[in-house]
């Protein structure tokens, strides 16, 4: 059964869309990640124009991050003040990112920049995660105690000005690092169609040294607003949000996430992290290989976007 997507202007199989939404939802429920970094490339592989894939996926992430942050909010795991500071950076980053996408589309380089960003970020994050989980695995095997990562250690971050007190995170740090983290995440949300949790969560733990209990909730809180803004900006600047596609992905994703969460409870943390790392690296390699291998058709055609379609 085919469904015609009014903005992508092509038809796709309904079960393929629901299946992708469900599968990525399952994985995100299992690993507690947004899944944008998996879904956007999948959409591109199935023939959706990259600019439409990025903008539509931002819209879908609004739904998944809303439902996730409601659950976190109930457990009082959201540091609202930290979330707002991150959001300040995120707003700036996403405004810049959407403009960047617009300029790149006119130059014909948007596909390339999206692919390169994916290779770069998936490569870095995937390798770090894999190294970390392998190391933990061996340490655990040898029976050595984990080196505890203590928050509150002094570093260059503490020498920066504009210090603020974040009560729930039990931190007194400069607003500059969270603003910069937010900026980067906003930029990635706009260019890559991801929530950015995979950058923000490690940054919050290792850079800002926030307690792990509030990290997920606070990052989801910020993602809700940044992806909402990115959706609206892509709608007004690029007209690339496909509401039909987004709604179907949401439907598949919501259901998949619930089953994924149940499955996730049955796996150990280290196994989960290693699995996720392998998946991230697999995606990175696939996109990287596509960039390097000579395409069967060197020419591509597009209707001129400068004229507004």
């Amino acid at each position: 059964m085919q469904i015609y997507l009014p903005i992508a202007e092509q038809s796709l199989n309904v079960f393929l869309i629901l299946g992708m939404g469900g599968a990525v939802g399952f994985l995100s429920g299992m690993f507690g990640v947004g899944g944008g970094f998996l879904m956007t490339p999948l959409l591109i592989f199935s023939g959706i124009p990259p600019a439409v894939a990025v903008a539509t996926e931002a819209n879908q992430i609004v739904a998944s991050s809303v439902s996730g942050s409601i659950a976190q909010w109930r457990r009082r795991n959201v540091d609202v003040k930290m979330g707002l500071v991150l959001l300040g950076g995120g707003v700036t980053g996403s405004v810049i990112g959407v403009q960047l996408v617009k300029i790149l589309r006119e130059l014909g380089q948007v596909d390339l920049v999206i692919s390169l960003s994916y290779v770069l970020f998936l490569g870095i994050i995937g390798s770090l995660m894999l190294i970390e989980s392998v190391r933990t695995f061996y340490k655990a095997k040898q029976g050595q105690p984990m080196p505890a990562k203590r928050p509150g250690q002094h570093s260059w971050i503490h020498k920066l000005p504009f210090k603020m007190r974040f009560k729930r995170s039990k931190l007194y740090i400069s607003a500059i690092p969270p603003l910069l983290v937010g900026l980067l995440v906003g930029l990635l949300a706009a260019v890559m169609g991801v929530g950015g949790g995979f950058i923000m969560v490690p940054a919050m733990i290792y850079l800002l040294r926030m307690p792990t209990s509030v990290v997920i909730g606070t990052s989801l809180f910020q993602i809700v607003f940044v992806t909402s803004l990115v959706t609206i900006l892509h709608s007004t600047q690029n007209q690339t949000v496909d509401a039909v596609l987004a709604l179907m992905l949401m439907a598949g994703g919501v259901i998949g996430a619930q089953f994924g969460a149940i499955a996730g409870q049955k796996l150990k943390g280290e196994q989960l992290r290693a699995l996720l790392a392998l998946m991230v690296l697999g995606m990175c390699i696939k996109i990287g290989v596509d960039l390097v291998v000579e395409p069967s058709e060197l020419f591509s055609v597009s209707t001129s976007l400068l004229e507004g379609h």
Partner: protein
Amino acid sequence: MRVLSLIGLVFAGLLFAYPPTATGAESVEADLATHHVAVKTDFAGVKVLMFGAVETPVAARGQAPRDIIIVIRGPEEKLRVRRKDRVAGIWVNSDSATFDAVPGYYAIVSNLPAGEIASSYTLREHGIGFNSLRANLILSSTGFSTGNVRDYASAIVRVLKNDDLYQEIIGGVGFSGTRLFRAEFELPANVPLGDYSADVFIFRAGEVVAKHTTSLRIEKRGIERFIYTLAHQQPLIYGILSVLAAVLAGTGAAAAFRKK
């Protein structure tokens, strides 16, 4: 894939309306089974039937056999063609050229290969076939940095053929009896919207002896049309609505799965 048909009725009507005459030139009448294609939610491409009748003067009967070529053209668009080059090991769009008037759809349906029906000169004169299309594309090109304009024009034809937007259907015209013919062409799901024209050429001994033109319109309808129009004319409202829908879906999911 649906087949639009009303054939029997219309065939009967054509027979009745155009009895053969003894004198005068050869002529052709043709029509499409539909003049409107609505792109709705379930649109996955459509086959369109064309049917018609050739009226041959008695004097001309029994002479050289006649051939039919039908050309269906979609709306012309400005198209940007980009060529990839290897830069530092990766394939990157480098040179590009703009073609001002590229038909978004082009199908040629004939009973024999066009080259066997008429000379390439005659075909080009009437704008029939991909060689003629390529020549017209080259005339409408601008902005070549490097490279050969021919390569770019050929690339357009190749890429769009690959997308089923350009088609060559040899043997796609069928005769029934001496006067009636029918043909079928396919509009794929990614077909551009707008006004189409369908030209029917009747050839005898390599020359066009009759021509008939009819039109076709493809447009979005229903919810597809509503969404597209809103997204392009009220993008801010569209964006806000998309976010609201997502927020509702998210809160709904959170509420639904909390009860469990």
